């Protein structure tokens, strides 16, 4: 093995675990105590960068649990899920799974769902800008083909189901929110995450609308999605949903050819 590779493996072990600092002694100059103190600077830098990235992706969760508790979560998360990427925007994707396994987060059982929602928001932030689309295209589809229309959705559009009022929790923690802060914990919400221009929006969906989006976002045809929606909620109103989706620029195009 090359000297350089071996030295980097030793350095890496010391960054992961202070106890392994002595593994660097073959390569790093100075007495052991000094090297250990200096390696601690790198360890602290690494933890601070990771915590900052995690806080950037999960700002609502940070508000909910408080900075101190969040910092503890960030340290534990880094140990459980170390960064694997040079771009910290990609760091933190396993936070919901991590929280679900965490015994002392059980008193706030909605945290994993909040993390799932915030990760969707985080990814949608950097999604491609929506291409303009003229809904007149919908009228041009022959009636016999309409049931097999597949919509092309604006990048970043996503839906998640929760047993908690997750969209409401997210909304009341936004800096510009000025409404009622009361939370009815008995409400289960389905959240639609989308981009409105450059801004990321989160809104609660009716059961039928959510079923429609989940089927349609997965590539289902208009017929498949509407069937799923009607199964979930016999009162589902396809026309109203399409009108809202079009008004919100969520649809970027349509296709009528069957997928293989």
């Amino acid at each position, binding site marked *: 093995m*090359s*000297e*350089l*590779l071996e*030295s*980097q*493996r030793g*350095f*890496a072990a010391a*960054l*992961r675990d202070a106890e392994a600092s002595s593994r*660097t002694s*073959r*390569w*790093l*100059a*100075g007495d052991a105590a000094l*090297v250990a*103190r*200096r*390696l601690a*600077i*790198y360890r602290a*830098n*690494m933890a601070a*960068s*990771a915590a900052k*990235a995690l806080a950037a992706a999960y700002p609502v969760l940070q508000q909910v649990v408080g900075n101190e508790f969040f910092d503890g979560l960030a340290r534990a998360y880094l140990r459980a899920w*170390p*960064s*694997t*990427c*040079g*771009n*910290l*925007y990609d*760091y933190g994707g396993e936070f919901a799974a991590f929280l679900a396994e965490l015994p002392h987060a059980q008193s706030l059982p909605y945290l994993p769902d909040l993390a799932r929602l915030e990760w969707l928001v985080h990814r*949608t*932030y*950097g*999604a*491609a*800008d929506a291409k303009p689309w003229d809904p007149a295209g919908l009228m041009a589809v022959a009636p016999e083909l309409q049931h097999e229309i597949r919509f092309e959705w604006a*990048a970043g559009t996503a839906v998640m189901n929760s047993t908690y009022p997750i969209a409401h929790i997210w909304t009341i923690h936004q800096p510009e929110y000025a409404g009622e802060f009361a939370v009815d914990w008995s409400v289960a919400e389905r959240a639609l995450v989308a*981009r409105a221009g*450059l*801004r990321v929006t989160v809104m609660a969906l009716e059961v039928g609308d959510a079923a429609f989006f989940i089927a349609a976002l997965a590539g289902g045809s208009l017929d498949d999605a509407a069937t799923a929606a009607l199964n979930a909620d016999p009162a589902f109103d396809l026309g109203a949903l399409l009108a809202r989706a079009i008004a919100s620029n969520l649809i970027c195009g349509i296709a009528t050819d069957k997928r293989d």
Partner: protein
Amino acid sequence: MALPLAAIGIGLRQPHYREVFETAPELGFVEVHSENFFLDGGASMHALERARAAYPVSLHGVGLSIGSADRLAEQHLAQLVRLVERIEPALVSEHLCWGAIDGLHFNDLLPLPSTYEALALVSERVDRVQNALGRHILIENVSAYVEYRDRELTETAFLAELARRSGCGILFDVNNLYVNAKNFGFDAYARLAELPASAIGQIHLAGHTEVDGCLIDTHGSRVCAEVWALYDAACRRYGPKPTLIEWDTDLPPLEVLLDEAGRVRSIAACAAEAAYV
């Protein structure tokens, strides 16, 4: 595409976007971290494109880990290629460092030993990056808090040789040289002679802090007097070079950055005048 030699810039960070766009301060360029824009679209990309319409942009990478002994992060490089094609920056720079090994990333600029083994590796990597980008890049010296036993050449001599072998330019960070001189007890002024003026494509200036007898490169304060003095000496030796005020943590009001940029202007002007006396 190249920047004028006397160009002075600042690091452009999100809290300053609005003020920079609205007041359009006189700047020769702005610099951003490349990785913050490895995105398909959205508000950050929109801001960068707006900045690009107003100023030449320098893309400064912090996550490529060019000196990782196991592999070059091809996917990371592909994202950089895409960003460079989209933004058409005036400068593209990376650090003389490593930050990842065996699939784990430390998201830090870790020092490399100044050995011929490391030089051979980094030269080959720079070559690959430059081929992928279809342009030359600048490589920056980093601050270090530990020192390798193996030192076959100085860091400055390493950079000079890297530039000679790969054709890359040097991004000379004056603060990083100063930090290392203090941390490891060498004469920073003596090292200036090791960098070839013709290879230096940009200069960085930033603040640092001292913790437990160790200088740490925090980019969170004004440039200190000793670093200004070293910059002055660098200007006299190398002639005018595009110079950047870098500030990443504890971001002050924009006017503080512009004030620091003004100081760069006066030192560079004095040095240029002295050169003709």
